[in-house]
């Protein structure tokens, strides 16, 4: 196993970091937190579209760049490092993979994502479908749907199948969330009619259902990468603070009690990061371990953020507790990523089934 990035991958990462330093400063994030964004979020998305980032994971045949999930992961990480308020996660790591893996190649949706003309998201929950001639009718409700309010199209995973539904056909009720850079909504489908050409997975099509699992692995891994990248910034920020903040006449980072906590944080960040890229590689190479690696990554991200958010805030002392300090943007983002697509307990329970330790194993599902 070779865990070093290629020079192309490193160049992509460095470019992304340089661009985002200018395009997504903390002042933009603060404007979103304080509800006074004046077009900055839209401008950021335009910049990402100009750079061609939405096209990264879309196959070349659909007008995309056809790069692997590792490249997608690198961009996800860089966006997380600046707490970017952007529909990238929902569109590129949720909507697009479901379309791609569930037989949507050649559809206008992937081309739309690649061109930056279409924003999408993913809705799953208590949603049922009913056949109606050559169409279906979709009923139910999904909660915590990311970027639903600005989405054009929604992949809806129902009990039996998967569909692409125009966002305009659903009732979208934004919910107040702790990290407004990841806006969410409750999405209700009240007897929405979905035509045959919008069916991704026919109910009862088990092969199609496997595509749902594969796409879910991408969404989970992206969320894990996002969580870990956020944690790494919290760790780095706290580390720098400990080097300059003096008490008792010396930097607080010189005290062994803190040194060992930093070593432990570093270990957890490195572990979670290594597992997240392992998961990304299983997806990139379509390795059979992609069935479990995303859950390991997400469970490790959970353990990582529990420590890093706690210690990051605690070791900043009072200043980290204030609204004026920017630290809370990262703390809230790390927590949000942790809770999306299953936390540590959900993924460890899934892994217990996968390891054959649970006699009443169920299929992986995340609310």
């Amino acid at each position, binding site marked *: 196993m070779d865990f070093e990035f290629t020079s192309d991958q490193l160049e992509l990462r460095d470019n992304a970091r340089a661009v985002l330093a200018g395009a997504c400063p903390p002042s933009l994030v603060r404007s979103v937190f304080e509800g006074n964004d004046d077009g900055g979020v839209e401008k950021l998305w335009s910049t990402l579209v100009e750079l061609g980032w939405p096209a990264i994971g879309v196959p070349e045949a659909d007008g995309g760049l056809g790069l692997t999930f590792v490249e997608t992961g690198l961009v996800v990480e860089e966006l997380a490092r600046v707490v970017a308020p952007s529909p990238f996660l929902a569109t590129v790591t949720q909507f697009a993979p479901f379309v791609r893996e569930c037989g949507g190649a050649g559809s206008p949706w992937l081309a739309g994502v690649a061109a930056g003309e279409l924003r999408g998201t993913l809705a799953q929950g208590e949603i049922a479908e009913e056949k109606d001639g050559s169409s279906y009718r979709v009923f139910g409700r999904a909660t915590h749907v990311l970027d639903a309010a600005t989405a054009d199209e929604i992949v809806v995973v129902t009990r039996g199948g998967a569909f692409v539904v125009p966002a305009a056909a659903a009732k979208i009720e934004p919910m107040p969330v702790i990290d407004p850079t990841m806006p969410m909504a409750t999405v209700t489908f009240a007897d929405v009619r979905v035509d045959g050409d919008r069916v991704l997975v026919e109910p009862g099509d088990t092969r199609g259902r496997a595509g749902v699992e594969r796409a879910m692995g991408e969404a989970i891994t992206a969320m894990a990468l996002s969580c870990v990248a956020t944690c790494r910034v919290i760790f780095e920020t706290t580390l720098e603070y400990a080097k300059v903040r003096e008490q008792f006449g010396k930097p607080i980072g010189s005290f062994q009690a803190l040194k060992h906590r930093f070593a432990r944080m570093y270990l957890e960040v490195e572990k979670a990061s290594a597992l997240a890229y392992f998961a990304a590689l299983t997806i990139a190479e379509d390795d059979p371990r992609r069935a479990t690696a995303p859950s390991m990554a997400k469970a490790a991200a959970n353990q990582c953020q529990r420590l890093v958010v706690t210690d990051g805030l605690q070791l900043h002392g009072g200043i980290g507790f204030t609204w004026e300090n920017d630290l809370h943007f990262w703390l809230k983002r790390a927590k949000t990523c942790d809770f999306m697509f299953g936390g540590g307990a959900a993924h*460890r329970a899934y892994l217990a089934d996968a390891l054959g330790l649970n006699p009443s194993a169920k299929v992986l599902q995340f609310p």
Partner: protein
Amino acid sequence: MRLRFDDSAEAFRLEFREWLAANRPSPAEMAAEPSLSTGHAPQWARDWTRKMFDEGWLVPGWPPERGGRNAGPVETIIYMEELYKARVPRTTNVQGLGIVAPSILDYGREDQIEEYAMPILRGEKTACLGMSEPDAGSDLAGLKCRAVLDGENFVINGQKVWTSGANYADFCFLFCRTDPDAPKHKGISIVLVDMNTPGITVRPLPEIIHPEHPDLNEVFLDDVVVPAANLVGELNNGWAMANGSLAHERGMVWLNNVLSDEMALDELLAEAPARLAALDSDMERAVMTDALVRLQIDTVAARCLGYRGFAKLVRGGDAPEQALMKWFATELRQTIALVGAELEGDDAVRMGEVVADGTQSVDDPQGSWLEQYFHSFANTISAGASEIQQNIIAERVLGLPRA
């Protein structure tokens, strides 16, 4: 980035696997004459080391005249994995082959190489590593064992402790103080000392588990006279060489630690369903299942983290992962044993059966889960305790200021 080694690496694996199957010492042969300590090489072990040396399999990354075949780092990983899985040691003299011989090859004169390093590689001699002292453990540079130059000889007085294999080793790679007035890192030298030199007393220190086969020893040196020509490298340059010596150990040790984690976890997961079924309630099963899953995640993480550091080392970069790996993988091995014991419930207190296959060493926990747990402290304490690794990470990797 990619998940698999290329075809030529896998071809190398097959080649070595076949050679190993055809040439390895049999388990019966090994069990008939177990190794009694890491300084003891039974005849089968001597023959086996010699055979590997002759056929270029002893240290694959070295040139043929030193028992290798100029293999690359990836091939070396594959080689170590195959050996570990076959439960065949390259040598019973782990410190000799892993640290002492390479250090002499790096820093010794030609005649020292011929007299001390090559015999280790050919299975003719065993060596121990005289570093720790009663008052110099984690603070190794504080060592006091004194070597005074007296004409053509050093006269050595002092005490070593935790010296693996000293009870059987042919010679010692001894760290001693040659300039007591210099700053502590700058007054240390390395001397090759034949263990049958008058004035050396070895007292075995039976260990917490299986006291019948002690590997650790105290070594007392009273007016031990050693030719001055046995100095390795330059006088008072021993600390710099020590860091080089231990680097030999750290470069690949992560892999053995990870393999130990993986093999132990496989064993634990194999017995887990029956153990879980025997528990009293669903809730207890759920609690223990979670502990097992956490171990699985950490074991995969250990492998990935090891590869991440390895990728950097191969490209000639720094790999802070080495300190992380030492700390993480050895603590993980401890936790695997602990969870294994807890899963057994009250039966955990039963003594395990010792499998005398000749491969046991203080580095390789064996016996029942509870015995493995106790034994695993050998690895979280020695070669830089976990707390020292955390200091190293905090200061050298993260740049936190010294107190």
